[in-house]
């Protein structure tokens, strides 16, 4: 990417024996929204802290706007950081929080200019009228906006957000999600967003980078990641696939559901058969069908608003999930502790294997 505003080159960081970041290389373009997705301990927060300059990488380089900033202290980087718990100054008002960097930063501005620009930022995040409230007198969502305004007031080219929506309730999360995107598009800044929630990552990022054990295991657009996960681990983190172990041999996958022909498989370190939750079909136990068949006991269902998740337990002890989108019609009801036959169209499965072409 020639317009890369930001570049990581072989960044490695260890804490004692723990390898937090392992040879991470990444280019980020101007005006891009990148989500880092990974389980806790995958190194995503460490990565953000290295980019911000709070931690120095052991090896590797960090470039920003063509400059090597690997050893530049945090405040000289021109990179904004929005903390997970917002890290507002508890003894200051909304206005003082937003204006802090302008008034006491590297290049302090005159008081009138500080006031003007903080007022502008406060209005942009929709908090006009709350300037003189203490930050403990406003709600979680408003605090989030103050944190964002405080960072954006410094006019950074790159904004790092550490699980910015994690501390908000579900309703607010959805609203802030839209708002973050809108604000970013208005200002034309690059956002790097770290999250442990696959929904958030897929919904927000122009690009999603999946991290695991300190390595980037996949990077691509949301639908690329969702439709073609690069490895069983990615499929696992997306939390949208039933994963079955088995063996792949001669174009056939042998698993607990029988032996199924595999049209194409992806290379991976182990043999895994993945079927999306929404690709599962439930049949009565008596029905005879071709293709994969899995006997499973219905356990419970969960109403999610736009769909219903049904949980089945298979004989081996594993849980298989089946998602029914309500837009496709009224859901069937299943009897608890009753056995059913689960099946799917093998063409929709994603297969990983050691002997893949």
């Amino acid at each position: 990417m020639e317009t890369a505003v930001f570049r990581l080159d072989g960044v490695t960081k260890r804490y004692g024996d723990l390898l937090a970041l392992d040879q991470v290389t990444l280019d980020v373009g101007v005006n891009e929204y990148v989500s880092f997705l990974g389980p806790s301990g995958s190194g995503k927060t460490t990565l953000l802290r290295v980019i911000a300059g709070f931690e120095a990488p052991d090896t590797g380089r960090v470039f920003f706007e063509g400059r090597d900033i690997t050893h530049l202290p945090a405040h000289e980087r021109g990179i904004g950081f929005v903390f997970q718990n917002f890290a507002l100054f508890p003894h200051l008002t909304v206005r003082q929080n937003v204006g802090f960097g302008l008034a006491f930063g590297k290049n302090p501005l005159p008081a009138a200019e500080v006031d003007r620009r903080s007022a502008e930022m406060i209005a942009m995040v929709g908090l006009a009228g709350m300037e003189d409230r203490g930050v403990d007198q406003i709600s979680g969502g408003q605090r989030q906006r103050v944190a964002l305004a405080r960072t954006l007031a410094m006019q950074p080219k790159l904004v790092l957000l550490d699980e910015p929506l994690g501390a908000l309730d579900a309703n607010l999360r959805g609203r802030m999600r839209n708002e973050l995107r809108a604000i970013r598009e208005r200002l034309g800044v690059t956002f790097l967003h770290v999250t442990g929630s696959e929904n958030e990552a897929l919904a927000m990022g122009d690009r999603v980078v999946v991290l695991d054990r300190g390595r980037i295991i996949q990077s691509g657009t949301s639908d690329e990641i969702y439709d073609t996960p690069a490895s069983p681990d990615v499929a696992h983190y997306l939390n949208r696939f039933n994963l079955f172990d088995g063996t792949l041999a001669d174009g056939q996958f042998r698993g607990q559901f029988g032996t199924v022909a595999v049209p194409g498989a992806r290379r991976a370190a182990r043999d895994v058969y993945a079927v999306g939750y929404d690709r599962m079909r439930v049949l009565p136990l008596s029905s005879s069908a071709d293709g994969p068949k899995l006997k499973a006991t219905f356990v419970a269902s969960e109403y999610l608003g736009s769909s219903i998740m049904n949980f089945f337990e298979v004989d081996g002890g594993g849980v298989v999930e089946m998602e029914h989108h309500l837009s496709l019609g009224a859901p069937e009801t299943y009897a608890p502790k009753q056995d059913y036959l689960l099946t799917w169209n093998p063409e929709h499965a994603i297969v990983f294997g050691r002997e893949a072409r």
Partner: protein
Amino acid sequence: MSDATASVPRKDNTTRWLLLPGIIWMALFLVTPILMIVYVSFWTQTTFNISSDPTLASWKQFFSSDTYIGSLWTTIRIWLIVLATTFIVGYPTALFVGLLVKSKTLSTVLLVICVIPFWTSFLIRVLAWRPMLGKEGAINIILLKVGIIQQPIEVLLFTELSVIIGMTQIYCVFMVGPIAFMLARIDRNIIEAARDLGAGFGRIFWKIIFPLSLPGVVVGAIFVSVMVLGEFATSGALSGRKVNLLGNIIVTQVGSLKWAMASVVGVILTVVMGIVIAGFLRIVDLKREL
């Protein structure tokens, strides 16, 4: 809603019962004694006797005597100096223990080390300064041996200086504790956020760290003030009777059974402490902070 209204009277009753032991205790051992001291300060004192006939004699005597007024000023001067020295020594210590030390274990160990002197009795801690500060004490011997001085420094012991040194050492930990506690509560992310916004160390300290530690400073200052204002042992042991605080006067008056004068000084000391504490509480709203 009916639930809430029904539970209010019960909660009120519980509150009353929970408060009762405290109220009885305070009435018996705080309010009554204070009223008693005020009352006794108006009693008539003769050389060998005391009667409850009301008189202002003891009060007039206090305010007309240079010795008594002088000791009031000495008390206030020593209090202010010790407050300053405990703060100057204590704040950096607290900053180190509470904020700069990253490991919680180490900062606990350091706080415990601060408290170790309290394992011995108060008097021993005070008297231990004599062999340190004396004319042939440790400090003079070391300075002589190293060759920094030719004559032993005599002002070290039995002067106001020795009282200040002793009090600073004894009361410093009461300044360190509350400040370190407040500093330890500061979210490290706040400091990183300030740094990320471009603030240098000085700005971060004066705009963020110090204001957030102020409640600790105020609590520490109240601890030190209350103890220093009521002091008599340190000045007695280290000043060679040259420094007379209000506390020393109370001790001598009680020793010679002059209850009325002792009460006058007691009342004045209590009022001074009240003013000092009220003043400190105006600086920060402790209710909000704790």
